[in-house]
């Protein structure tokens, strides 16, 4: 961490806050919680402290990196009405500090890559996102355990780190392994006097992620199958979910790849200045599909169908892959425990019978 501080980075690491693991500023390794495991289930998240002294035994908290880049609420520009009737418009870009994050998971990185593709599209790169993205230094970590809600093996995004990190890391019983992920990461490695990893250590690293993979019991079918969700638009299972779903939008808010936002002005009482704000939106919110008096998706079942078909099928056309990275957050944080892997299984069951 000192090396990072020395290079001017603010360091974020896992901290227990509000009964969850969250990324907060941590300045010393001692500040990291030890032995904390996150038990996750459909609609349930509990931290448990075990006797091991692992720092990264938890899988993940309520949010991935999304809020740090795609801010939940932010001002896009400010307008001022001048006395001569002119309107002065100023873009308001965030001021950011270089930020290093410890303990980024493979699924988080896969999601980040997808958000990059969306927000940094060559035609319209988002300036707010871009500034924050460029200030990021990512220290990824292999998952040695899986939560009951994880299914990254089936989406191919985990549990071991793929790409997208600056520095890779694995937590073993007897220490840590580090490896380079980028030129910036190499620079850090070079400054640390690390010993080369032994064969045994490498083996136990692989064993750890294998064990994590074996712990997973949820899965999503392959992308070709997922595309068939579009052939199931009239399946009765949508209505069954519609009965249970509260249209609360939690699943979209915690999903590391969901990107919908809405914009709106806020004006001052004197009527002389106004700000354009944007905030996270969700395909579950009533305004999302609103065309004035008419709502394209008035019913909850239609909103859930929009979410699932878009995430798993629509993304494939839009971004070349499904929008799910297997983190399972939407399962954990759905207050009523709706599970997309079960929904998909039910919807695709029986081949293309209703196509």
């Amino acid at each position, binding site marked *: 961490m000192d090396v990072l501080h020395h290079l001017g980075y603010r360091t974020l690491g896992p901290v227990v806050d509000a009964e969850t693991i969250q990324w907060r500023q941590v300045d010393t390794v001692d500040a990291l919680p030890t032995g904390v495991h996150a038990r996750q289930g459909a609609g349930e998240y509990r931290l448990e402290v075990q006797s091991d002294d692992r720092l990264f035994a938890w899988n993940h908290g309520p949010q991935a990196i999304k809020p740090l880049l795609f801010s939940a609420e932010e001002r896009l520009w400010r307008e001022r009405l001048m006395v001569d009737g002119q309107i002065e418009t100023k873009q308001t870009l965030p001021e950011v500090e270089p930020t290093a994050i410890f303990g980024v998971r493979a699924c988080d990185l896969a999601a980040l890559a997808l958000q990059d593709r969306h927000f940094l599209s060559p035609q319209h790169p988002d*300036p707010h996102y871009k500034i924050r993205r460029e200030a990021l230094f990512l220290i990824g970590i292999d998952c040695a355990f899986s939560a009951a809600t994880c299914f990254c093996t089936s989406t191919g995004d985990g549990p071991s780190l793929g790409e997208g990190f600056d520095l890779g890391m694995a937590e073993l019983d007897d220490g840590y392994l580090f490896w380079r992920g980028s030129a910036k990461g190499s620079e850090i490695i070079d400054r640390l006097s690390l010993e080369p990893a032994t064969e045994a250590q490498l083996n136990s690293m692989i064993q750890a992620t294998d064990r994590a993979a074996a712990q997973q019991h949820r899965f999503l079918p392959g992308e070709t199958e997922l595309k068939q969700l579009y052939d199931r638009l009239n399946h009765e299972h949508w209505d069954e979910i519609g009965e249970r779903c509260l249209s609360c939008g939690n699943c979209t808010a915690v999903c590391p790849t969901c990107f*919908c936002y809405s*914009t709106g002005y806020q004006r001052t009482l004197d009527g002389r200045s106004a700000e354009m704000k944007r905030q996270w939106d969700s395909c579950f919110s009533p305004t999302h599909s609103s065309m004035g008096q008419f709502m394209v998706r008035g019913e909850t079942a*239609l909103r859930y169908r929009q979410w699932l078909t878009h995430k798993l099928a629509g993304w494939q056309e839009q971004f070349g892959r499904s929008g799910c990275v297997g983190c399972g957050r939407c399962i954990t944080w759905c207050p009523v425990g709706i599970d997309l892997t079960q929904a998909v299984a039910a919807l695709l069951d029986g081949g293309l019978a209703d196509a």
Partner: protein
Amino acid sequence: MLDAHLPHAAVIDRRVQESPGIFSLRLQYVDTHVQDIFEFQPGQFNMLSLFGVGEVPISIVSDPDDSHFFDHTIRVVGRVTEALSRLQPGDRVGIRGPFGRGWPMAQAEGQDVVVVTGGLGCAPLVSVIRYLLRRRDRFGDIHIMQGVKHEDDLIWRRQYEVWSREQGVNVQLAADMPGKEWPWQQGLVTELINTLDLNLEKTISMLCGPELMMLAAIAQLRDLKLDDQRIWLSMERNMQCGFGQCGHCQVGPKFVCKDGPVFCYSDVADFLGAKGF
């Protein structure tokens, strides 16, 4: 290209009340440099923002070759459009744009063009009609079919009369509720399509209006055996950004704002008219 993320100020040069609920604004960028580099295709739209009130997607209806001004025709339906309707020449709005894919004008070269519109759906196509007429020799016959609910809803009535006198231009108008002075058809615009004698190898159709009307028109055109590839339509969905980022306007895997708003029917056939898309 203009910055898609920040509005540029434009000043209202002229305001025309087309009908009780519809008005047009002729706009010009305050910054002349911006005006110079602003160019668009027929069918594209702008995000129009009113200081402190809101931002709405509105099609550009002027001719793309008109380099000094651009026009918007707007119907008052709610919060923002109502506030826009109170603006007067000299007032300012913010413009981000142009956005989206316009009409397939290149593909239409040498073809007969059937333009079917309903209600204010005519707006995105007026630009097309003007475009076609200015370049009359590059296109075949032009069929203009416009439907309105009520006679009074018809705007640009004189325009239609002028157009109908042009060589090779067939104008047909239908009103659900025509008045006494209505020289055209009574009924639905889609019923007019049956009367067409299309050259299936050399016709392109462009539709714009309420989705139910477009669906009915598409059904008619397909009945006449016009190929799906030759049917184009313009769609509307809730839009916040205009360039495929906010996620609101998706229809299936398509973003209406950037993959559209003008689509080839075959690209959206699966979702058009499907409840929830």
